[in-house]
């Protein structure tokens, strides 16, 4: 007997196999992507609508995970705002960080909307440095933002923070139960990883080893 989950998995297997077949026959981007495009245009899966429970999860169990992710995103927003206001950044770094701050705010927006849909309450964002530093401590961010006095230090702090954030998303993805939340979390985690890469490129231009240090973002082991 095939339930909805089994049927969806069969479809997925077919989709992945079809993608592989297309790629083997041609690498024309238009053809290769024609049957596989997910939510596009920078719009998150969660923003696209509600969600069904994924393999083994429940929407109710996602509330706590969402609150945790939102608190993390609020810390990142504070960190970028703080760096942008520091007066220590070059024009190119200022432009990049401005874009990344917009991304982080989009993440907060998408997660807040998803949380509200589930009946949860959006946590209060830190507005004072003391609260920000307390949250950093809670997240086990080793590098302190106190006393940063040049662009390189600011970038190093943000790279560390982005990597910690990616670990939180990785852990959340292991626990979330709703399909669309899972997809959104994965889309955001990948974006945070790209931020870390782009920040590392600003810090050490052309050094791909620093920009993409490992094949497994946030580790290869379990959980």
């Amino acid at each position, binding site marked *: 007997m095939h339930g909805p989950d*089994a049927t*969806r*998995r069969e479809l*997925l*297997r077919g989709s*992945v*196999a079809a*993608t*592989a077949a297309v*790629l*083997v*026959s*041609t*690498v*024309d*981007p238009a053809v290769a*992507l024609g049957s*596989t*495009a*997910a939510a*596009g245009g*920078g719009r*998150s899966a969660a923003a696209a609508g509600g969600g069904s429970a*994924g*393999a*083994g*999860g429940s929407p109710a169990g996602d509330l706590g995970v969402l609150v945790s992710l939102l608190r993390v995103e609020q810390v990142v927003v504070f960190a970028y705002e703080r760096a942008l206001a520091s007066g220590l950044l070059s024009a190119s770094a200022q432009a990049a960080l401005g874009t990344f701050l*917009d*991304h982080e705010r*989009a*993440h907060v927006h998408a997660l807040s909307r998803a949380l509200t849909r589930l009946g949860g309450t959006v946590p209060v964002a830190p507005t004072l440095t003391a609260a920000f530093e307390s949250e950093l401590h809670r997240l086990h961010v080793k590098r302190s933002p106190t006393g940063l006095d040049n662009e390189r230090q600011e970038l190093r702090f943000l790279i560390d923070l982005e990597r910690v954030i*990616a670990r939180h998303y*990785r852990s959340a993805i*292991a626990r979330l139960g709703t399909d669309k939340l*899972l*997809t959104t979390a*994965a*889309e*955001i*985690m*990948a974006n*945070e990883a*790209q931020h870390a*890469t*782009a920040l590392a*490129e600003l810090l050490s231009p*052309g050094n*791909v*080893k620093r*920009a*993409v240090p490992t*094949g*497994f*973002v*946030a*580790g*290869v*082991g*379990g*959980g």
Partner: protein
Amino acid sequence: MVGPASRRAFLRLSGASLAGGSGALLTACGGGSGAKRKLVAGSEPAAVRRADISIMNGVLDLEHTAIAAYTAGIPLLTGRARAAATRFLRQELSHASKLHDTIKGAGGKPHLAKASYDLGSPDSETDVLDMLRALEKSLLSAYLAAIPELMPGWLRAVAAGILANEAQHISVLRSVQGQRPVPSAFVTASE
């Protein structure tokens, strides 16, 4: 001068060479020392289902294709693009190795690389970079589709870690081509 036909033959040959060699490379990269393998295995519950094996074999097929493409394309690249592609090839090999070991560890039969891949006829650095980006996009799409379907827990986490790495590859490839490295707040198959 290498014409399109001979270049295509070259790419096929490179893919075949890679396919033949990747088994050895995968074995060499596959989890490192015995102690490391034991540690990783110890942190991963054995709750891998038949459906998970099938999904992982689907993305493994794409990883094999990406490995063939990077292997064939690297000789046509120069400078920063070549350095990046060389690093990314190593990382794709580590993804394939992880998937291979996971499938095998769960009692499944990992798909092997094909003897050859028809990768088209790129005849410039731009063509090669476009080809690599197209493959990376397909990997993004496949991992994004796979994550909600995999068993909750470490298997999803591993897939998410690989997805994020593929997103970093695209970011660097975009940068090499003079484009904004991070164009959107949400990484989708459209980059």
